[in-house]
């Protein structure tokens, strides 16, 4: 199973998403997001390599974005892959992704 890549730089946390974000990856993703947001700094999720994504993982990102907004922490999904974009479109979350992503 590919892992979520964690890196920190200048108080900013970057999470590199794996290619496969299926259901079993949702919990590790959620844990990573919780941990990143709890650090209090900016959080960037690098999503260019996502080739498969489950609704559960999208839901985790969604909840994280709301938590970030409530906590006043800056949060961004960087370069969402085509698959992620399309899945969000399918789920009716295109505008949410637009709001929180940067290509």
């Amino acid at each position: 199973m590919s892992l979520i890549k964690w890196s920190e730089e200048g108080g900013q946390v970057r999470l590199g998403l794996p290619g496969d974000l299926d259901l079993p990856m949702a919990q590790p993703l959620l844990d990573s997001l919780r941990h990143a947001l709890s650090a209090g700094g900016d959080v960037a999720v690098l999503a260019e390599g996502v080739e498969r994504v489950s609704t559960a993982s999208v839901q985790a990102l969604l909840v994280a974005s709301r938590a970030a907004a409530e906590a006043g922490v800056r949060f961004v999904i960087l370069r969402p892959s085509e698959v992620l974009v399309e899945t969000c479109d399918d789920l009716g979350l295109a505008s949410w992704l637009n709001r929180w992503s940067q290509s």
Partner: protein
Amino acid sequence: MEDLSRFKQTYFDESAELLAVAEAGLLRLTPGTADADEVNAIFRAVHSIKGGGGAFGFTDLVAFAHEFETVMDLVRNDAIPITTELVDTLIRANDVLGTMLGYARDEAPVPPGTGDAVADALRRHQSAPPPATDAGPPHNDLDAAFAAAHAAETTHPDDEDDEAGIFGDAMAAILDARNPSAAAAGRQRWTVVFRPRPDLLLSGNEPAFMLRALRRLGEAEVECHLDRLPGLAELDAEQLHLSWTITLLTGPSVDRERIADVFEFVADECDVTITADAPPPAVPDAAAPLPDALRSPSGPSVPAAAAPPPPPATPEPASRPADPAAPRAKPAENGAAQHAGLTSHTIRVDLDKIDRLVNMVGEMVITQAMIAEHVRELPPGEFQELLEGLEQLAQHTRELRESVMSIRAQPVSSVFSRMPRLVRELAGGLGKEVQLVTSGETTEVDKTVVENLVDPLTHMIRNSIDHGLETPEEREAAGKPRTGTVTLSAQHRSGRIVIEVADDGRGINRGRVLAKAVEKGLVQPGASLSDEEIDHLIFLPGFSTAEKVSNVSGRGVGMDVVRRNITSLGGRIGVYSSPGEGSRFVLSLPLTLAVLDGMVISVGEERFVLPLTNIVESLRPKPSDLHGLVNRCDVMMARGEYVRLVHLNRLFGIPGATEDATRALVVLVETEEGARLGLVVDEVLGQQQVVIKSLEANFRRLDGVAAATILGDGRVALILDVAGLRDMSRQGGSAPPRAAAALPAPEPAAV
């Protein structure tokens, strides 16, 4: 899984059509000018293939399609100019997409490197303008990214197309390409509220797939409800807290049941309500619940009060966001108009089902012939009503046969449409200027024939351009226009389809053909051959006059393969050439491979069937009508012209037949090329519809025989090939029976 396979099959079928749409559009792209609709249609086709591929996890295909789509997006935004090189790259990209679809269909992995060169070329075209989407923020400075993420709405290149959904988009692209006016056909608006149970994900179900499946039914607007989302600390990653309201615009062919089918496998794990916003044809209620099978066992569907923000009962059509890429999305103005769409006039039917139908009709034709055979034995003047009923049955059977055959009929345009590209590539590769003129594209013929026409026509057009047409300089020197013309035409003639490939090139160089044939030992040195016979030498296996072998032609596997392919379809090929003026190849093929109208004849104890379309008349000649040519053949004077007599008993070695033509009958037949023959037979037994059974498939090919059939009395009879008989009679003259030509007894032929 079976359900997914069905969707996959639909995806592949539609993708094949979309590839054809894209290729046709690409071939019409002219450097310097671009038809916006055309470019959009290509973009949508590629986008739809990509979208569907993503749904099924064809990652290589999706990645490649993305590069293709990106370039098309730049083209439609006038960000890059249309050049010949770009069009060539896009055409090759379309090919690669087709290849990748082939791998996906075969469930085979895409070999590494597939399409890499084309993908690189696509990227080179992308690099011309500086698209902002490629840049991305630097990793070590996220400020810009954060700022942008929280700034005004960003856009994604696909936004304007996504509303139509993957398969809805695909179908729309096809419909747009075929009939733009169909785009505005009547629609039905549905509201679907989908509220999964939290543990739905644990059973392996994926809501995104269901929402995608809904999109395939039409144009979907999906609203996701977040009201049940817990906080980050409380979230259980594998529990689902989302629900959706989908507004679906469908064609009239989509009913409530089809929508409910999407949720068939999660019936126990979700609450779904499907609301027809305008009265559907059969159930004009406002908010009917799911069928019983889809109800939650624990109770009815979620009441409106408990549901997520309920959709308006009758949403205003104008409230839909404008969709510049989908003008087809205009909702129907009233209920009656919703069912006038073109989509309701076509359905996709599995070919096996049609073939079973064709087979059953064939068996019915045989049975009807058997009954007719028995009825002939009834006393004359009796059972009049029965006879009249049987006559009606025969007529209805004929109409049924024609109707069924027309289901399998397809226009040859599906083959013709591939040729402009071939011509373009060949002309470019050979440094020739060529225009292709086509006619009769709507001529219909059996699907099997259409499918098997691709290779022969490709060979013939290659041949015409490579061998037939001169270079522009040579043409100018010969007083011809620099641009050579290849004409491809189709028409119905005498119950067959006749396809011609003609060019206005140099014609067949008979001296060279003959010399080559002698050199290869195909013809004896010093042999005297007519022009026609020399022309036909090009159909001999291994014959080629090309001086050097190229990837265009010159391996000597062209025209003999063409003839073999055509013959295997029950067809014939002829060539007509005039030096300096050009050549004409004429293919004659049966319209259907299943049933034909024939005349049953007898020779000795054997019975044969002659296609009715070949028969001119039958007559009994007087002795003064017959003439013998020494060592050649017998001829007969018929209607003022001499006609070669062919004794079928001699040709096939049938004993006990009448030798004397003045005591037998002569059936005057005509080939598609207009050549006449007189077939000497014992008796003409009568006209009959016969079901064609392939000899090649069940036994082996026989000269002079097109196929076999089963007669009303259960006997097997061979269906004669008139042009084949003519060729045989030329080779054998009217000499006494030849052992080599002896016909195997028809009875053992296991048909």
